């Protein structure tokens, strides 16, 4: 589970705060959606929650970030090892580039965690099966379509069995089947206790998945409401976020 207490963050070399005074809690089993206009700080918040900012990027942070009660920033230069999975929007840059097969690609994370081979294999198979891409196991990762690549990236994170999963616009490259798969997987993950934070423009997807919706604007939190109340909130329209912006609806 994720806790942010009065967190502000500045990118290195920048004076302006990318996120300012954020208080947020995501419990195990919750799916929290993150909306807002561009440059609102959604991606930054995702990086901070994953411990990559400032851990990997540098920069200055104030406030407290806790994942399962552990400070991601307490360890020098490293995110919380394997506790947080993060999926980005661009599929291709998430591949390692050194694995000859999808199976090895998905196994890359567990191997880095130092797991024995049997555990790695079991986790990899489970992750591939959860996303319906077990048939791709022996394919070369660089020959896949954008949608398949994104599913592989997702599986690569799942294989690490994170307790918090952060997704930054994960479904942009996916077709309706892909989105359905992702939605189903997220729901089942939440069912088994994973905390999920998902930043998206696709309000319909969020409406069908999330228990809560958080809105950001210019680095500050505008509201943090249960999904039904959030969807009726007039501020949503002011932020430029509307329903029906996506033609694909994920059935629940």
């Amino acid at each position, binding site marked *: 589970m994720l806790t942010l207490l009065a967190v502000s963050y500045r*990118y290195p*070399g920048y004076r*302006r705060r990318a996120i300012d005074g954020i208080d947020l809690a995501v419990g195990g089993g919750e799916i929290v959606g993150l909306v807002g206009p561009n440059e609102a700080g959604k991606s930054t918040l995702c990086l901070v929650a994953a411990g990559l900012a400032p851990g990997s990027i540098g920069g200055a942070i104030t406030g407290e970030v806790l994942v399962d009660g552990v400070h991601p920033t307490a360890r020098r230069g490293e995110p919380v090892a394997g506790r947080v999975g993060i999926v980005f929007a661009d599929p291709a840059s998430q591949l390692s*580039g050194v694995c000859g097969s999808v199976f090895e690609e998905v196994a890359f994370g567990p191997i880095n965690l130092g797991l024995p081979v049997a555990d790695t294999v079991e986790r990899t198979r489970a992750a591939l099966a959860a996303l319906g891409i077990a048939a791709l196991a022996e394919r070369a990762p660089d020959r896949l379509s954008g949608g398949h690549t994104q599913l592989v990236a997702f599986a690569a994170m799942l294989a690490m069995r994170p307790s918090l999963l952060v997704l930054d616009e994960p479904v942009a490259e996916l077709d309706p089947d892909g989105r359905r798969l992702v939605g189903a997987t997220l729901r089942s993950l939440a069912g088994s206790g994973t905390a999920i934070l998902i930043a998206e423009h696709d309000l319909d997807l969020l409406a069908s998945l999330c228990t809560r919706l958080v809105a950001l604007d210019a680095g500050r939190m505008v509201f943090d409401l249960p999904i039904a109340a959030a969807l009726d909130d007039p501020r949503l329209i002011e932020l430029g976020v509307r329903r029906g912006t996506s033609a694909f609806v994920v059935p629940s």
Partner: protein
Amino acid sequence: MAGAAMAVAVTVGLAALGTFDTTPDPNGIPAGSKAFMLALVIAVVVGFAAYAAVEWIQTRRLDSIARQFDTRTIVLIPIAIAINIVLGQAVGTALKLPVYLDSIGTILVGVLAGPIAGAATGLLSNLAWTFLLAGTPFGSPYAWPFAIVAIEIGLLAGLFGYAGVFRSRPSTPWPRLATGIVVGLVVIGALVWYGVVPFYRDLCALRSTPLRLCFQFFVDGPVPVDPLFIAIGVGIAVVLVVAAVAVAVRLLRDRDLGLVFVLVAGVACGVVSAFVAAPIAALVFGGITGSGTDLLVFAFQYAGSDLQLAVLQQSLISDSIDKTASYLVVFAILGALSRRVAGRFPQGERALGTIEA
């Protein structure tokens, strides 16, 4: 600390060699020159060893070296190696100019990540080119002997980057710019006069065929000049003039003093690389690389130099041009790179100057 160790080593070396021996050896090079170069190389190695030893003793870690290898560097290195290989292959096979352009990636890593990272890139680049790509169209079985040259290039680029040579200094006021240009020309001139020209003297004294060939500059008295040399000379001169004009235009338009620094550093790197690469090329390959530079070796050997000297004479010209061109390309790339991206590399901020928000 490292500087002190180096200075000590150089002094000891020179004292051991005695006075600077100016008697020319069979090739006409003062014996002292070669010994001096050797002493310099040993001094660099000693300096580095002293630096690493002191750091280890003080901190029980080699942090300044380890810090150069964070994840960003590890991701950058294969990209740099790919740049080296793709460009080197393209230039080597397609264009027949006296340049190789196969170390741009190495220089880039050296500047952005540090000297050791640059050296590692050079080494891995040559090893990958030889072993990992063997049997593919991109492989080259002849790259591995030059690994040590690549290491030296990466090391130098890292040190120059550390010293801020690659910083863009646009809109420099005219007096400073003019001073900088003059100083730069003086430094290059001195480098050329003392480090390069001695190897081209007495080119004529060696061969006594009916058709005597000489570089007219370095010989007294009327001597007929061979059309071959004129042709080669003109070709190189044209390339240099065009490049110099382009650089001068850029210099005058942007008033970027950094350009002068980069040019001087490029020539220095070229001269050093020539000394490291020439023996390897001569010993392993008989002085041939299959590129346009072979024409120069042909010319010099025809003028009477033995193989080692001819290769050195060729290297000093083509490596200087190649490294200067490469340094300029890297300077252009760094200029186009977003400051935010560059600054996140281990040596990025130092190499490019501080970032403004």
